[in-house]
C-alpha cells in the first residue's frame, strides 16, 4: 500500500463511511487500529503534498471523534457479551401487594399531614412497604387485628383550604392498601396534633370511637362492621376516649376525674360513672401518651410520676401513682420529654426522659429512654440515645426494637440491650410523629 493510498483511506474513506468504525467494534484490536488510523490522519509528513491544511485537519478531528465514540460503544458491546440472555419482558399493569399479616418488624409512621408510611424498621435496606394518604395533619390510624382492615379518620374541605368540610373514616385493605369502604362522620372531629385517644376501638374492635371537639366535647360511636355511625355521646368538660371494659370508654375530665361510659350493642350509653379526682390538671397533668400493658395503661405525668389506670373492668379503676425518678434523679430534675413519650413491649414501660426539666420543657426531645418494671415499680435499664428523641415506640416480641423518632430520622435500637442498630431517614418529616408498631 502506498502512502497516498493510506492518506486517501485515512482522510476520506473512513470519514465518508463512519459506519466502518462500528463494524469494527467487535474486533478486540479495533480500537488500537482506529487509533493508528487517526494518528495517520493527523500526521503531516506522508500526506503533506497530497492533502494540505484544512482538509487534513478535518480528517484528523473527525477521526479522533469517531475513535472516541467507537471506544464507548465497543465497551457496551463487550458488556452485552457477558449477558447473552436479554432481560425478560415484564407484564403491564403490575401492582405490588402486601402479606395478609404484616411482620412484627413493620410499623406505620405518621408524617403528620403528609402520609402514613409503612416501613420495615428491622431492615438495613430501610424498606418502604407502602403508604396511606393523610389529607389533614390531624389524621389518625387504627389497625385491626381481628379482621383484615385498616381505618383512617381524616378531614377534608371541598376546596382544599375552604368549602364544605367532610369528616370521614376510610377503610383500607391491608393487602392492597386500596380503599374498600368509607364512613362519613356527621360531627366534626377534634382537630389536634395526632395523639392517642382521638380514634380508638371498643367492643373487641367492632366499634370505633372518635373524639370530637367543636369546642364542645363529644364522642362519635361507629359500627365498623356495619360501616355506619351509631350515635354521638356528649362528654362536656372531658377529652379523649380510652376503651374500657367489654364495650365502653373512659374520658379524662378537666375536674381531674375520669368518666367511664358503658355502651349497649347499639352504641347507646347505658351507664356512666366518674372516678375520684386524681389528675392534677394544672400542676402535674397526665401526659396523654400512655403505654398499655395487659389492660392497664401507664400514664407518665409532666413532673415524672406515673399513673396506672386499669381499663379492664366496666368502670376504670384508678391505681396508685408511683414515681419514675429517684431522689437522686430528682436533684437533676429528670422528667418525661417529647411527644409520644412512652411505649411498651407488652411487659416493660419505656419513657423518654430529659434532665433540667422546667416550665415548658415537657415536649422537648429527650436524650435518654428509661425502662421500668411496672410490677416492681423500678427502673431496670437506662438507654442513652445517639441523639435526642421526640417519640418512642417498641415493636412486639420476640425481638423487640426500640424506635425513636428524632428531629432528622428514626433511630432503631435493640430494645433488650439498648444497642443502636440503624438510622432511617424520614424525608418530608418536619414535625413530630406518632409511631404505630403492630402489636
Amino acid at each position: 500500500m502506498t502512502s497516498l493510498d493510506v492518506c486517501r483511506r485515512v482522510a476520506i474513506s473512513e470519514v465518508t463511511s463512519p459506519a466502518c468504525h462500528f463494524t469494527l467494534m467487535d474486533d478486540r484490536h479495533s480500537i488500537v487500529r482506529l487509533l493508528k488510523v487517526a494518528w495517520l490522519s493527523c500526521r503531516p509528513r506522508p500526506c503533506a503534498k497530497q492533502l494540505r491544511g484544512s482538509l487534513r485537519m478535518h480528517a484528523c478531528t473527525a477521526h479522533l471523534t469517531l475513535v472516541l465514540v467507537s471506544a464507548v460503544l465497543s465497551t457496551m458491546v463487550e458488556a452485552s457479551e457477558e449477558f447473552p440472555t436479554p432481560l425478560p419482558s415484564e407484564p403491564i399493569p403490575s401492582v405490588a401487594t402486601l402479606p395478609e399479616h404484616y411482620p412484627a418488624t413493620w410499623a406505620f409512621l405518621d408524617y403528620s399531614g403528609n402520609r402514613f408510611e409503612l416501613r420495615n424498621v428491622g431492615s438495613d435496606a430501610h424498606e418502604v412497604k407502602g403508604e396511606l394518604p393523610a389529607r389533614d395533619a390531624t389524621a389518625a390510624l387504627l389497625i385491626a387485628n381481628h379482621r383484615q382492615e385498616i381505618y383512617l379518620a381524616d378531614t377534608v374541605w371541598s376546596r382544599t383550604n375552604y368549602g364544605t368540610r367532610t369528616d370521614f373514616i376510610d377503610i383500607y385493605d391491608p393487602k392492597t392498601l386500596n380503599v374498600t369502604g368509607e364512613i362519613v362522620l356527621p360531627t366534626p372531629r377534634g382537630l389536634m396534633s395526632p395523639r392517642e385517644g382521638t380514634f380508638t376501638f371498643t367492643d373487641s374492635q367492632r366499634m370505633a370511637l372518635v373524639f370530637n371537639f367543636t369546642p364542645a366535647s363529644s364522642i362519635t360511636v361507629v359500627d365498623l362492621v356495619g360501616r355506619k355511625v351509631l350515635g354521638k355521646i356528649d362528654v362536656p368538660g372531658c377529652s379523649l376516649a380510652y376503651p374500657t371494659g367489654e364495650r365502653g370508654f373512659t374520658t379524662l375530665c378537666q375536674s381531674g376525674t375520669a368518666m367511664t361510659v358503658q355502651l349497649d350493642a347499639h352504641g347507646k350509653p347505658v351507664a356512666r360513672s366518674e372516678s375520684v379526682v386524681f389528675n392534677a390538671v394544672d400542676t402535674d397533668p397526665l401526659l396523654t401518651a400512655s403505654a398499655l400493658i395487659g389492660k392497664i395503661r401507664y400514664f407518665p405525668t409532666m413532673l415524672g410520676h406515673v399513673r396506672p389506670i386499669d381499663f379492664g373492668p366496666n368502670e376504670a379503676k384508678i391505681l396508685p401513682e408511683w414515681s419514675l425518678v429517684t431522689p437522686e434523679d430528682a436533684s437533676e430534675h429528670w422528667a418525661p420529654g417529647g411527644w409520644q413519650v412512652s411505649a411498651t413491649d407488652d411487659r416493660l414501660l419505656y419513657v423518654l426522659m430529659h434532665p433540667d426539666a422546667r416550665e415548658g420543657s415537657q415536649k422537648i426531645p429527650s436524650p435518654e429512654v428509661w425502662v421500668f418494671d411496672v410490677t416492681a415499680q423500678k427502673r431496670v435499664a437506662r438507654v442513652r440515645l445517639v441523639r435526642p428523641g421526640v417519640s418512642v415506640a417498641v415493636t412486639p416480641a420476640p425481638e423487640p426494637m426500640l424506635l425513636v423518632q428524632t428531629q432528622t430520622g428514626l433511630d432503631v435500637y435493640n430494645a433488650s440491650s439498648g444497642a443502636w442498630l440503624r438510622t432511617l431517614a424520614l424525608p418530608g418529616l418536619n414535625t413530630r410523629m406518632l409511631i404505630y408498631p403492630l402489636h
Partner: protein
Amino acid sequence: MTPKRSMVENEPSQRKAVDDFDRVTERLLRGFASRTSRRSMLSVIGAFLAGGSAFPLLPVARASEGSPPEIKDDPPQTTGNPQDPGDPSTCEYWRYCGMNGSLCTCYGGTTSTCPPGTEMSQVTWIGTCHNPADNRDYIISYNDCCGGVAGGRCQCERNEGDRGVVRPTKDNEIVWCFGTQSQSYTCTTAIILGTAAASKR
C-alpha cells in the same frame, strides 16, 4: 468468532469513491484559493476577533459573572416600639412563651393581625408572658388564623403554661379554628389581652 473485515482494506468500488472525493475537494479548494487574497482573509479574521472581544461587555454576559449571590435568611423584624422588644419573626420573642404553631409574622400578618385571605378564630388558648422591657406580665391570646395556606414556615414551640388537651384552654396542640368559615389552620398570632396579676407568675 470470525473477525469482520476492516474497512481500511477497501473494495475497488470504494477506491473509486475515494478518487472522486479527492477530485471534488481539490477543485473546491483551488477555486477558493484563486478567489481569496491573503489580505482579505486577514481582515475577516480580524473582524471576528474584535467583535468577539466585545461580547463579555454586554449586560447579558455580566449577570452570570462570578459566584452566584448567597441566599440569606429573612432579615429580622421589629415592632418599632421599644416597650415591645424583640424580633416577632423568631420564637424567642417575648409574647411567644406559650406558642405552638407557625408565626403569622412570616405569612403577611403581624403579632396581632392575621394574614390577608385568612380569618381569625374567636376562640383560643391563652398564656401569660413576661415583657422584659416594662417588667410586666401580660395575658396573651394565641388566636389561630384559618382558611389560608399552611406552609410550615417559622414554626415555634415553647409550651410554657401548656397543660394538655384535658385542660383545653391551656392546650396549644388543638387547631383553634372555631366560628370561622374554614377550620384549615394557617398560622398563630399572639395578641395582648391585658396585664396579668402579679400572682399569676
